């Protein structure tokens, strides 16, 4: 099976620049500087590389939004991995830091930036040290500095450590944080491509997204596109966790069936006696799937549209609408697949997810700040057997008023899982409510 971003996993030497070069590293960067920025963007557009951070936006298209006459442009690498279930970027940076630097150099050159920032999550001290070392090596070898790989194009890299805030994984919050402020998300538009970091045109890309770029330049955009499905190319470093035999990072072609990710890559359930109950398919903000809904290709369009997956409901029999009015099934999000076995209390699990979002809501928008707190409290009391009559309806009503009414997507990250748990496991919530005092 083709491994791109995980090809150096297990090779402890590959994080040294000399070894990375022996393995073919930085050849793509040398090739890149012989191309024009537009040629690189065209190749990445042809590759159908989509954002691996969670939203799945086409990377080449994002780069093409940068105004061609912009004087100062920035690239920001989003390494603030924090969506529960997600741990791929941590492993990717640890095993193959130079692939990230190489990918970021190419991307920065393509958008005509002279400086990129790697915003790394504060807790990831081990990976921070690995990256700092790699950046120092890249400077010493001339891949970074006044003339990137001998091209005459100046390129600087700054590794910037976050300080503990989930919300800073949201790109505009990250930009505010990088500017030295509280990590409050910004209203969009203007989008970062026009007004981003320090008010300059900025591209924010996820770690894994950029680590695919060297391979795309070497093997060609069409080769990469052909690995995946139409509109969504390449592979995904799936972060598998929960009640599965082999948790870890499993790199699979985009479009691999979710069942095979869990039962072939992951070796199936950890205890034979406890069958699969549910799957959180893309980080905890993505709508949960029941065991009957996993015969779907692991890809954005397929999971959004597949009739295998039941539509999330706003109330029993009433479909939830979002964005331009479409219905919601699920998504592969950040590539985090959390496997849940029979016997797990879905109310307690949902309560834990809600407590997380309540803790991480930045507090700017009332629906999210108050709503997430309400959901966390009501779910928690239901899970503890201390619920009240009407609690399930209350959850539904509150959840329906958050997503779509906030500055950033954290509001959706509260609404979507809450309504999906109620759509698929409502009976468990009702049983908890029925057992409660009147």
């Amino acid at each position, binding site marked *: 099976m083709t491994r791109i971003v995980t090809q150096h996993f297990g090779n402890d030497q590959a994080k040294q620049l000399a070894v990375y070069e022996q393995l073919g590293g930085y050849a793509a960067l040398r090739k890149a500087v012989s191309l024009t920025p537009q040629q690189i963007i065209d190749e990445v557009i042809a590759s159908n590389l989509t954002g691996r951070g969670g939203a799945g936006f086409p990377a080449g298209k994002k780069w093409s939004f940068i105004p061609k006459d912009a004087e100062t442009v920035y690239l920001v690498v989003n390494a603030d991995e924090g969506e529960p279930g997600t741990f791929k970027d941590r492993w990717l940076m640890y095993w193959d830091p130079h692939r990230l630097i190489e990918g970021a150099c190419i991307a920065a050159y393509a958008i005509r930036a002279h400086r990129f920032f790697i915003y790394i999550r504060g807790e990831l001290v081990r990976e921070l040290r690995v990256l700092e070392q790699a950046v120092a090596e890249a400077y010493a070898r001339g891949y970074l500095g006044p003339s990137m790989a001998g091209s005459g194009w100046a390129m600087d890299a700054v590794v910037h450590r976050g300080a503990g805030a989930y919300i800073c994984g949201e790109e505009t919050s990250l930009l505010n944080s990088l500017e030295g402020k509280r990590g409050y998300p910004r209203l969009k538009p203007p989008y970062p491509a026009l007004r981003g970091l320090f008010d300059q045109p900025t591209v924010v890309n996820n770690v894994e997204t950029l680590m695919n770029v060297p391979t795309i330049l070497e093997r060609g955009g069409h080769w990469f596109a052909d690995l995946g499905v139409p509109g969504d190319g390449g592979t995904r470093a799936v972060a598998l966790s*929960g009640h599965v035999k082999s948790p870890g990072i499993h790199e699979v072609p985009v479009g691999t069936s979710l069942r095979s990710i869990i039962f072939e890559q992951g070796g199936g359930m950890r205890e034979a006696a406890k069958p699969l109950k549910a799957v959180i398919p893309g980080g905890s903000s993505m709508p949960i799937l029941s065991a009957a809904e996993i015969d779907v290709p692991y890809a954005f369009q397929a999971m959004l549209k597949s009739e295998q997956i039941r539509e999330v409901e706003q109330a029993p029999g009433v479909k939830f609408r979002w964005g331009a009015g479409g219905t919601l099934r699920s998504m592969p999000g950040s590539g985090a697949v959390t496997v849940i076995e029979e016997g797990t209390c879905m109310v307690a699990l949902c309560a834990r997810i809600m407590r997380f979002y309540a803790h991480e809501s930045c507090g700017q928008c009332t629906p999210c700040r108050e709503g997430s707190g309400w959901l966390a409290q009501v779910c928690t009391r239901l899970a503890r057997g201390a619920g009240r009559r009407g609690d399930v309806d209350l959850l539904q009503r509150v959840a329906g008023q958050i997503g779509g009414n906030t500055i950033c997507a954290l509001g959706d990250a509260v609404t979507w899982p809450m309504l999906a748990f109620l759509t698929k496991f409502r009976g468990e919530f009702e049983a908890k409510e029925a057992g409660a005092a009147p």
Partner: protein
Amino acid sequence: MALSFSPQAHERIARLLPQYPTRMAACLPVLWVAQEEFGWLSAEAMRLVAATLELPESHVYSVVTFYTMYRRHPVGTYHIQVCTNVACMLRDAYQVLSRFERALELKPGETTPDGTFTLSEVECLAACGTAPCVQINDRYHEPVRPEEVEALVTRLRLEAPALRAARPVAPAAGPIVTAQPVPAADRAATAQGLPAVERD
């Protein structure tokens, strides 16, 4: 006594500043320097950062209070942070947490009277594939099974004096680790003119 940065810290800050087009952008990195230097961010330390970067003190305070990793009170020699989020929860994180509570006789948010251990329950550490994860100071321990907790605590207790001795003590930094329980630090903050703050 007013705090000041050591020459080494000054050097680090001087290297940081040219990386950013504004001084404000160096706020988070300089706060990291301060926290590493002083162990935690007292009101005085925040004022020092504000003066160093020519920022309003209120700005620095607003930043410190937004991010959970900036400490507004001293922590123990070992800061034990147990992740209980989804993937860890599915693999017995709450049992791990309660084993720590029993072994240390602490609730999350508390520090042992001798200043050796602080216990926290934290959100996802991005170690879901090796759950349950416990972060002790800067290091991830993954996985930590519930039945391993007692032996781990015993080992840390034995190693604590050596770790304390090895920690650089910055001049004029004030106490890096105090033996006082956490609320005293909040009282101290109030006395220094900042509002008492809720703990994370």
